[in-house]
């Protein structure tokens, strides 16, 4: 057998230039980051508008500034409603209620859910885990809307009361998510390494566990935020959350639907606003998940 067996003849000159390896320019990734930033900016603008609706409106949401059923125009951007109130102004003021009641719901959900999740996840299968698990299941078995109805019956109408009830319902999902993440993180070698380095349980939790698991929680929060807005809107629509003349979006949609045929904007525009905000939040949730390595 010949001693040289492997031969690579001089490569024919290839027309294609060889791509340089390892160049940065992960453009797709950067694009997603940029998209996320744009979405977060939009969200920030919404927060400002929700905090200070007077800044972005010229009319009072409760004053009869125009004729009834004026279609959208330069003066009344979203038109006027059945008694001549500026719909744009009402939508912006309604945003405040919808937005902050949903925020309250999510806050209750995140805080309660995280506490329950961490407590049960630290010792899976332990007594605490089992008790909290049963409680979570019990709450899960009750539809969140039913829970909200019960709360409203007991404590009176209002978006914020509904929100707390919805938040308690949402906490179950957060608890499950956080519990799973905490259990998963316990098997991470660097978490055990930190423990063998002498780090106490709190230090391990704050420094190693939370930073490695908060991402899915954040993304889930954005999604639940949108769902909470829908839930609160539905309750008001059904006549359980806010009551007229409140400009809460569910109330606006319910009030406008009678006139849908000859004044579509009164119901459709608040509906579109709600859809847009929920889509924005879901998109943020999606992008946050995508941007995770």
């Amino acid at each position, binding site marked *: *057998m*010949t*001693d*040289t*067996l*492997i*031969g*690579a*003849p*001089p*490569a*024919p*000159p*290839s027309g*294609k*230039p*060889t*791509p*340089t*390896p*390892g*160049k*940065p*320019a*992960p*453009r*797709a*990734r950067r694009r997603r980051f940029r998209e996320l930033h744009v979405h977060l900016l939009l969200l920030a603008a919404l927060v400002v508008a929700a905090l200070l609706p007077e800044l972005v409106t010229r009319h009072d949401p409760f004053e009869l500034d125009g004729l009834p059923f004026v279609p959208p125009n330069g003066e009344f951007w979203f038109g006027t409603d059945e008694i001549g109130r500026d719909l744009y102004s009402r939508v912006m003021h309604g945003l405040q209620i919808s937005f902050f009641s949903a925020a309250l719901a999510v806050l209750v959900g995140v805080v309660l859910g995280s506490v329950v999740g961490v407590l049960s996840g630290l010792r899976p299968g332990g007594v605490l885990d089992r008790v909290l698990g049963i409680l979570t299941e019990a709450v899960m078995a009750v539809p969140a809307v039913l829970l909200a109805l019960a709360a409203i019956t007991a404590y009176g109408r209002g978006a914020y009361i509904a929100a707390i009830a919805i938040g308690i319902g949402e906490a179950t999902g957060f608890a499950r998510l956080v519990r799973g993440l905490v259990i998963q993180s316990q098997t*991470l*070698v*660097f978490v*055990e*390494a*930190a423990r*063998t*380095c*002498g*780090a*106490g349980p709190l*230090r391990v939790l704050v*420094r*190693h566990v939370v*930073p*490695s698991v908060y991402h899915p929680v954040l993304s889930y929060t954005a999604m639940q935020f949108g769902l909470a807005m829908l839930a609160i809107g539905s309750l008001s629509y059904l006549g359980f959350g806010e009551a007229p003349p409140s400009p809460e979006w569910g109330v606006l949609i319910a009030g406008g639907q009678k006139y849908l045929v000859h004044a579509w904007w009164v119901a459709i525009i608040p509906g579109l606003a709600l859809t847009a905000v929920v889509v924005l939040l879901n998109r943020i949730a999606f992008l946050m998940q995508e941007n995770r390595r």
Partner: protein
Amino acid sequence: MTDTATTTPDRTDARTAPAAADPADVLVRVRDLTVTYRRDDAVDTALDGVGFDVRRGKVTAVIGESGSGKSTLAHAVVRLLPGNGAIAAGAIELDDEDLLARTDREFRPLRGRHIGFVPQDPVSSLNPTKTIGAQVREAFSLAGSALTAEQVEERILGDLRDIGFAAPETLLARYPHELSGGMRQRILVAIAFSQRPRLVIADEPTSALDVLVGQEVLRSLHDVRTKHGTTVVLITHDLALASRNADDVLVLEAGRLVEAGPVAEVFAAPRHPYTRALLASSARLREGRVLSIAEAYERHGPDVRRAGSPSAEAPAVVTLDGVSKSFGGGKSHVRAVDGISLAVAPGSTFALVGESGSGKTTTSRLVLGLESADAGSVHVLGEDLGTLDRKGLRALRRRVQVVYQSPFESLNPRLDLRSIIAEPLDSFRVGSRAERRARVAELLDRVRLPASYATRRPQELSGGQRQRVAIARALAIRPELLVLDEPVSALDATIQAQVLDLLQEIQQELGLTYFLVTHDLAVVADVATQVAVMRRGRLVESGPTADVVLRPQDDYTRALLAV
């Protein structure tokens, strides 16, 4: 931007120049093969103008370290590159047929029928929901075999017998989870050869298996190959394995073919500096020959024996007395550790050797106090772990530190190196902020990493560098005992030697005691003063390294040493 056309001739060794090999003798001809991976919008070149011939009926080993493109090469030939991979240029010929001219659809019939593939991981490569028989028969139906059902059955039984299964009839009705890893891998070998392909590509066929089991698999692969005269391409990172099993070798470095030729020649007289470095890093290869572990030990041994001078009178650092530990109950009850007694002298390196499932890792976790013993006593640095409360255990953690197997998992990717190394200092509130910073700088220097690395994150480091960081962290609070859990098995061979040298240097300087857990007797021969061999939860043999390595008393030790 590099142009392959102009650089190829410069970097290829004389041996890879146009072949004088008889063209009829060549089964696979690869020319100027360039494979790229798309990552987001960047493009990585995994293989860069690789060209070689594979001789018919021979075994060609492809060697190289991780990231050198070995597996990419195998996958490019069978066209199983991941979705983001593409053959950017070049030619692959099988029996003078241009494979790249075939569309994916036309290529499919080649797989199995003409090119067999043995994957790396036998566990994930068999369908857990189907019987072995169904999966072997599937190979025939997928290849469109013309054999009748009876002929297929007969062929399967014959093949399985050839591959070393005594009673293949009973095997066919079983499910993958009922078989050991080695048996599963042999099934995969049988499947790869079942259609009598011209070429079989084996991608690290033994690296997921224990040494002894891996040897068995290679032996059966060799038997079947000889029987059918199949050409085999063997991808491996193990030089000793390549040396013993292959006729020809291709050496890849960072996607480029740096050397190629008959194994005996290349290993005896490597021409490329990279091949030389690779060979030098393997303690087991000298002048193109594989040394036995005992021979390697005799060559290296003397300095080790001088290095560790444990004082026999001093009280032992670790004492295990009749320790047992079981997991699970009922049917899944496993005695991981079964009545083990051992003592580790201060300043020595105690190596606990065993294959997977031997209980060696459980033993190390018992020493670390991460598990508690069911029976017997564990004493570490004079403390009885059985009676220590949480506070006492934490106090002990100041004196016992650990280096984990995989530096890719043991370092928190979200922290910079300064925070990682300072973790024990922060946890025990040792010194002021400035003192901790100074200590981190000192430790980085100690493990020979630049001080500027303090602000980097683990992802920016190579495997070897990460393991150095893990060592620095373990040293931070000046422990007396270091538990090393397979400290080098996740690293490439050249890096292994460096990390082991560093560990020995540190031991001599600081007088540390090492409790080393490993499956690799070659590592042990290099560094250990005492060796204990563990099998199925029991110690089969223990003693000074020289005794165990040169005069093994137990058959199991002998088998491990013969690898």
